[in-house]
């Protein structure tokens, strides 16, 4: 039984097939890298899984439960949390406020308990704030805790995006290009953090252009090209695949 499964997932935008009959099985604890040239449907794939788009055809299952057709918040409640390709933040909120808003799913006490500030709610709140601080430490945001989120540098905003996803304790973490616009050292830092996250037992699906990052972190790689899956396997095997090289560099003409 696969953890997350896509069966013939298809997404059309008008006549354009952004994703065409994708079959994909993800096992628990894997770190799956998705690569492909621009416009190959990587982000569409994440948008389908997270419920931002509904598939035109096909189904998506999570732990044998059908999730295609659900709203994004219902899918998030099941434990599939995503980050965005651009820095999507709560503008106007500080780092700690953004984290507390994102901690929505951590609470088991009801809204009424929170409204009347019962002891159970206070205890739980303390626990969650403790987790927020742990995560902020893990992702190196401790110095910026009380700064407005939109004032952080690009790299730290991306880290905040990952932190906001991690506070929900996801089972599956969908990372949409976590290292865009970073230099080598920053990217390395992010890779270390992703490794730590996956060591905690989180299944990570990440889109990545940077091959060095991908080879380092992924246990399996899927290559997309024009909405089709053209390769699937261990990173080293995939990188030597003739079809993949053609998709990236074009065919050889003499």
């Amino acid at each position, binding site marked *: 039984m696969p953890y997350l499964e896509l069966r013939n997932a298809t997404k059309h935008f008008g006549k354009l097939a952004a994703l065409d009959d994708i079959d994909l099985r993800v096992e628990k604890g894997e770190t799956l890298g998705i690569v492909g040239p621009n416009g190959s449907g990587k982000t569409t794939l994440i948008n389908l899984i997270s419920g931002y788009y509904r598939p035109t055809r096909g189904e998506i299952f999570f732990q044998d439960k059908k999730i295609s057709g659900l709203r994004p918040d219902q899918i998030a409640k099941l434990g599939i949390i995503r980050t965005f390709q651009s820095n*999507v933040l709560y503008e106007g909120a500080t780092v700690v406020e953004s984290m507390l808003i994102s901690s929505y*799913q951590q609470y088991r006490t009801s809204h009424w308990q929170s409204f009347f500030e019962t002891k159970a709610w206070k205890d739980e709140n303390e626990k969650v704030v403790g987790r927020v601080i742990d995560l902020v430490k893990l992702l190196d945001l401790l110095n910026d805790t009380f700064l407005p989120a939109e004032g952080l540098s690009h790299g730290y905003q991306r880290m905040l995006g990952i932190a906001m996803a991690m506070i929900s304790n996801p089972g599956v973490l969908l990372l949409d290009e976590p290292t865009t616009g970073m230099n080598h050292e920053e990217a390395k830092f992010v890779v270390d953090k992703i490794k730590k996250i996956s060591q905690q037992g989180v299944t990570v699906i990440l889109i990545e252009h940077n091959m060095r990052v991908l080879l380092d972190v992924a246990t399996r790689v899927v290559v997309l090209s024009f909405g089709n899956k053209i390769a699937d396997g261990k990173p080293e095997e995939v990188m030597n695949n003739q079809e993949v090289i053609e998709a990236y560099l074009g065919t050889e003409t003499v």
Partner: protein
Amino acid sequence: MTAYIDYKNVVPKIVIGLTIFLIVLLPVITVNVATLSMIILSGIWAIAVMGFTLVLRTGQFSMGQAAFMALGGYTSAILTVKLSLPFWPSFFLAGIASGMVALLVGMVVLRVGGIYFSIITLALGEIVRIVAEQWEPVTKGTRGLITSPPPPIALGFFQINFATSTVPYFYLTICLVAITTLIFWQIGQSRLGRSFAGIALNPVLAEHQGIHLMKYRVIAFTVAGVFTGFAGCLYAHFLTVITPHMLGLWQSIQIMMMSIVGGTSSLAGGPIIGAILLYSFGIYLSRLPVFGIQQLLFGAAVALVVIFLPKGTGLVDLWERFWRKVVWREKEFEFDEVEE
């Protein structure tokens, strides 16, 4: 902007306490009907403005809040006049009826929210006014319904009589303002407030973190509807009449203006300050023999606030700046000079 302005951090507790104390003891100083009714009506408007501000906290701009006052007022008037129900049950039914309408309209419109919500609430205001005008057998059309003040409450040998003096009504309004403030403040501090802030600041991100957008928008809109309905009921019974034109489009716009001038970033203080300022100012202006001067100057006030205090902090922000600069003598942050 996720946290409300906490007045305890801006103004010393003693100043807040003293102000509340003075307001509560106002009837001891004066029993002038004009002064008291001004405070009562400002209080009623303040509740409506708080409702508007709560809906605004979820990122939705309601343009028909006066419709809920009209719904509350008419419900209670019809129940007491036509069905001769006592005042107190109809007071609560007024809030419930108004909340039910908010719930039903919200469930339909808040699926999309945004500009569609504003337009539909604008239309709702007009629909309520037209129904009140046309449904002659029940609402008596443009002549309106004549309501009676709440019945006297006997407390042993002491009797609270609403008909002979405005003082009991004054305390009733103050109580409702206090309860509304407390409940809305607590909503802002609880998890609900966090979710509201999330869906206002970034709906897409909030939805991907498991927050059901429509649910929280509907909760805010319904809670606002209930309390605005209570305010409308008080309004109708204080003025002892309710007509379709008392709570129309201009009143909805007034609610927005009070909220903007008082400051949208504070839930309780801004609406209260805005309501008292604009309402008393409006009363003064309506005595002037110039047609439309009230609308003109209110518009100018909103324009000034939007231009010079654009962060939604309204006049509260001016007060905060004054307090920081003049009273605390807070200096601008300076870096320590590095010694060579």
